[in-house]
């Protein structure tokens, strides 16, 4: 059960950072602002409609996950603590895996904060509505959407994690990942006339395209996108692992 202890270590280090709490607060504040704005500017808004609107703030949780993923390895190097971390009877790959898992856990927690805040604030501002609308379980539908968000979150976090492990620079990892997150999908559009464009990572990251039935490329399916994401994930993981495993620590 040593793995659990390693996870606990990483969790403590992450969650005790002041930024971890601040990010949660920012998220709630954003939902509240959105709620206030909606209540002020629109005549009638339905509860579930607001909850769905607020879920688009998930981009912010991805941003926060990128920040956490981009600094978890790099900050050990910049603070020098990597030396005390790697002279223990633990294989480096285990430490790396614990770090990545905890970042994902943190991202998922942020998604929960977002969902919780939008349900609460939505209910307070617009009044709760029944669980079933037109025989659709709205909460289940919401959960499905959030599950698709997790997929997107994992791949962006993995990207930041890899850049951070390879270059040991959190600013580079965070900056580059955020840049790609915003420009990647656009660049994919530009390549849209080529057949291979659908193999570009960013053509597949937005998994809700299948739920909303507006796929980027003809004939793409959830299965296809998940496979592409998984392939990239494997590449990111292997690169991070190999680089971390072989690195001479001289800080």
């Amino acid at each position, binding site marked *: 059960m*040593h793995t659990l*202890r*390693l996870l*606990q*270590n990483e969790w*403590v*280090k992450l969650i*005790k*950072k*002041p930024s971890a709490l601040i990010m949660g607060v920012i998220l709630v504040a954003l939902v509240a602002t959105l709620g206030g704005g909606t209540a002020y500017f629109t005549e009638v808004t339905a509860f579930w409609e607001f909850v769905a609107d607020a879920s688009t703030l998930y981009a912010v949780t991805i941003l926060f996950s990128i920040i956490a993923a981009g600094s978890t390895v790099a900050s050990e190097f910049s*603070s*020098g*603590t990597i*030396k*005390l*971390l*790697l*002279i*223990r*009877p*633990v*294989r480096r790959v285990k430490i790396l895996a614990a770090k990545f898992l905890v970042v994902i856990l943190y991202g998922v927690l942020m998604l929960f904060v977002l969902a919780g805040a939008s349900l609460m604030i939505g209910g307070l501002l617009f009044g709760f509505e029944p669980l079933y609308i037109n025989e659709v379980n709205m909460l289940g539908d919401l959960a499905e959407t959030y599950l698709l968000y997790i997929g997107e979150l994992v791949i962006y976090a993995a990207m930041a994690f890899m850049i951070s492990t390879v270059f040991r620079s959190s600013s580079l990892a965070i900056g580059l990942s955020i840049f790609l997150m915003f420009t990647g999908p656009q660049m994919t559009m530009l390549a849209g006339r080529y057949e291979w464009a659908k193999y570009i990572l960013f053509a597949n990251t937005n998994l809700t395209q299948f739920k909303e039935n507006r796929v980027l490329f003809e004939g793409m399916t959830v299965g296809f996108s998940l496979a592409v994401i998984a392939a990239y994930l494997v590449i990111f993981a292997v690169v991070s692992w190999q680089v971390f495993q072989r690195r*001479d*620590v*001289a800080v």
Partner: protein
Amino acid sequence: MKTVVEIKNVKKRIGRKEIIHGISTKLYPGEVFGFLGPNGAGKTTMIRMMVGLTKVSEGQILINGHSITTDFEKAVRHVGGIIENPEMYKHLTGYQNLRQYERLFPEKLPAERVDEVVKLVGLEKRIHEKVKGYSLGMRQRLGIAQALLHKPSLLILDEPTNGLDPAGIREIRQYIRRIAKEEQMAVFVSSHLLSEMQLMCDRIGIIQNGHLIRVEKTETLVDSGSHDVLLNAAPLEKVKELLSNRLYQQVENGLIVRAEKDELPELIHHLSKHQIDIYEVTPMRKTLEDSFLQMTEEDQHAYTQTASK
């Protein structure tokens, strides 16, 4: 005797540059081994290899018989250390930091072990404060605490007294000596503070430009320098005449004469036979510092000579 560490012809290359040129030595239980060398000699590089932070380019390092390269987990299992500065997680308390290191080992420690090491290094009062607010000396103590947490059989300390005040230095020094003997732990401690090493170590290895140029018992190293005596005698001119077959140097309060200890009685007889008034004969006990500087200078000299050929 059982060896704790065996270093066999270890070399380190970074790029094309060779930084460590084939070092071999052994460490035994209960001994404090000093690794002494000027800045840039390769002390930290050697230590980094011993704990597996950097790869050994050639040769082998065995800790309790396990190779650090091929059997990393078993080899580091019984190693505790500080490499250069004791960097800690600043946003955590001293206690939380120690818990981090505790959890990095597969087996759980008895709950009171953390408190025990905290007490050993005298940090009880501040241990629940964030490390951010610690002084360098307190961080150094916390570093030693984490190194001792698992009762290692090899303790590696890279300049452990860096940043401590004189009282702190003495305390840590005595402490290191004590636990080395009590727990039969081998201690590998690096420093360029020579006076420090003289008081703390049983044996000293001198490293210079990546070569281990000498390994000696501390006494031997200290004594080996003591072949000068300060001679205060009159009349001076006659003394100089009588000593013309020896090396000497005139100083304010007499002459410094090169003479081995067992030559002294004869020298004194000789002088008194010629009606010299002898006021003082004092062996100039060289400190380790002197012998160290002398040795590294000689080495440097040899080095530049070969280089210029």
